[in-house]
């Protein structure tokens, strides 16, 4: 979030008690001047919520060629998993048509994690399957990438698989994982940064 310009000395040096005696209008104006930013301070395109709040990591060819995924890691440790830009499924004509969470031993969209302690969460290995993404001719398995508990899958993908085509990097995320204690440190160096991934895939 952008740093705001310091409020005017005038406004701050007036003790609060005195402010109460000024008219409602003055108070509104004071507030207004505090709220409005200086347009010169505003960036043309601000960073996205993902850029601000997460560190992005990428993995290319995860277990199979062309299976590129991203891991957005929040400061609180949670990881959002999804399909990276150059994932094969996203490059096919027609794109993704079906997303099915019923893979492995259970339907991932049926899980019910409860409470602060996140009970009933399925424990996944990094190669555990999250879902199967199908295109016109092919299907691809999306995997966990990080060992930990599965907190949530994006069940919107079931009814709106097109989210993967329009915004795989945001609303089309696949799942949220809570890595097992100590797991992240072990694995983070095996991931690529955004720049490294872009260079690897020759993207713009």
């Amino acid at each position, binding site marked *: 979030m952008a740093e705001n310009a310091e409020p005017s000395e005038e406004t701050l040096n007036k003790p609060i008690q005195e402010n109460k005696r000024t008219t409602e209008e003055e108070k509104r104006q004071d507030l207004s001047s505090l*709220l409005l930013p200086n347009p010169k301070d505003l960036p043309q395109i601000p960073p996205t919520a993902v850029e601000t709040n997460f560190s992005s990591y990428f993995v290319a060819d995860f277990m199979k060629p062309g299976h590129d995924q991203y891991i957005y890691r929040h400061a609180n440790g949670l990881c959002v998993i999804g399909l990276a830009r150059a994932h094969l499924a996203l490059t096919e004509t027609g794109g993704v048509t079906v997303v099915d969470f019923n893979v492995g031993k259970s339907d991932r969209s049926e899980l019910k994690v409860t409470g602060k302690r*996140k009970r009933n969460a399925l424990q996944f290995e990094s190669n555990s399957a999250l879902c199967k993404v199908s295109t016109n001719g092919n299907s691809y398995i999306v995997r966990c990438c990080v060992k930990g508990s599965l907190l949530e899958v994006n069940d919107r993908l079931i009814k709106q698989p097109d989210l993967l085509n329009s915004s795989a990097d945001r609303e089309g995320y696949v799942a949220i994982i809570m890595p097992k204690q100590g797991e992240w440190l072990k694995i983070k160096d095996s991931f690529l940064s955004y720049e490294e991934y872009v260079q690897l895939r020759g993207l713009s």
Partner: protein
Amino acid sequence: MTSSGPAPELKTALIKAKPFLPPCHVIHHLLSTGVCIRCIFRLSGIHDRDCYTSPLDQSHFMFFLEEHNDNDIKSNFTTITYCSICLGVLCSVCCVQEKTGAAFKEITSVNDFVLFISDIIKREEYQIDGFSLEVSVPPVIVANDRALRLQSVESLSSPFHIRLTYSHSETSQKLQSLVLNCRDSKKRERGSGENGSSKKASNESDASIYRALDLIGDHDFCTRFLVPPGKVDKPCQLVVACHRTPIYIAGRYLKYSRNVSQSRWIIDDERMGEASVEELIGENVLQICRGDGYKFHSAGREDIDVRMLGSGRPFLVEVLNSRILPSYTEIEQIADNINNSDKKLVGVGNLKLVGAEAWNMMREGEAEKQKEYAALVWISRPLTDDDVSNLTSLKDLDVSQKTPIRVLHRRSPLERSKIIHWMKIENVEGTTQYFLLHLCTQAGTYIKEFVHGDLGRTHPSIGSILGCRAEILQLDVTDVKMDYFD
């Protein structure tokens, strides 16, 4: 008793007892709930026999009170017949079975009472040269007494406590091992508890010792305890501790900085942010009040990077063992210290001393309170007039928010339904894709997520309503409504 008033000894006794009695209005209240005068004396800790020996008519008592008081609260209540606490025991009123055995008769005076008892002794033709009295009352009287004391504790006891703790280690150790031995041997007899190993507690609480003593019968007691108790060569040790019950200072705070957390936030020995609202206000209050510590309570909270503007957020500082009861000037001093500090990080207003009920006032309805915000929003295409009318026309919009990812690690994964009451748009001159979004929402709404959508987990969101991408650059709280703190 003469109709001219209470007997002279009683009158003198009453004058001596006057300082012990509770305030007039409290006495009136007690009398109106059916408590007799003697029970009021008992409650006040008046033990002068003269107060109890002569009968005291209620109207004379009231007259005496009015004579000796500035405020003349005239009350009219029907004369009570039986006390709700002692059930007549202290008023020499009781029912006794007639000699004939058929009906019950009421005794109303001390003399009649004494006669009744002496009659029983004479009837049996006892030869006596003295007597000792045993009195057994129904347990409900003990319960009534407790109720009376609990009811009166507020009006009778002061918030400033002086605690005198006497201890005598030498004899207490002996008693403790004695009592525990007795308790453990009983357990072994009954077969409950562990066999063999007696729990060696070095410091049993007083309460558990009293409990254990209660369980020991008189006979048992005499075999184990030295009767009479032995001589001691050292007196008790005394520790005096003074303590005041917490005082509360209420007010509203403003947070001007985007680098100040609300409460003290330290991770791995490092402080997050420059300072905390809690400490900036609490330390200043503590310094003036000279207390042992403080607790900061507020009506909700805002993120470290969100400013609190407008009228401010209601808060309470609970000062523990405050050495003073701050006066108006001292409270002004606290406000000045905070508002005129070098770094204008935080400000306070409406500071005042309040009672303990303030805590409930703040919590009560916290979930219903509406809050107003101003968010600086960027969208991925220029803002149109349609966008503005679209957003401003939405009233009481239902929003469904899954627990935001940024707090999902410590909160339950739930889907919460919140209401956005209204929205207003303010253009930012010189830009086409930025605007100031003013909104009023239900308490507990996550504003940042309502703007950027939290990867679609909050819907609808500004982005979904306008059909483009929306980002939030900064957020300010502009109003928290709570009348009590105005």
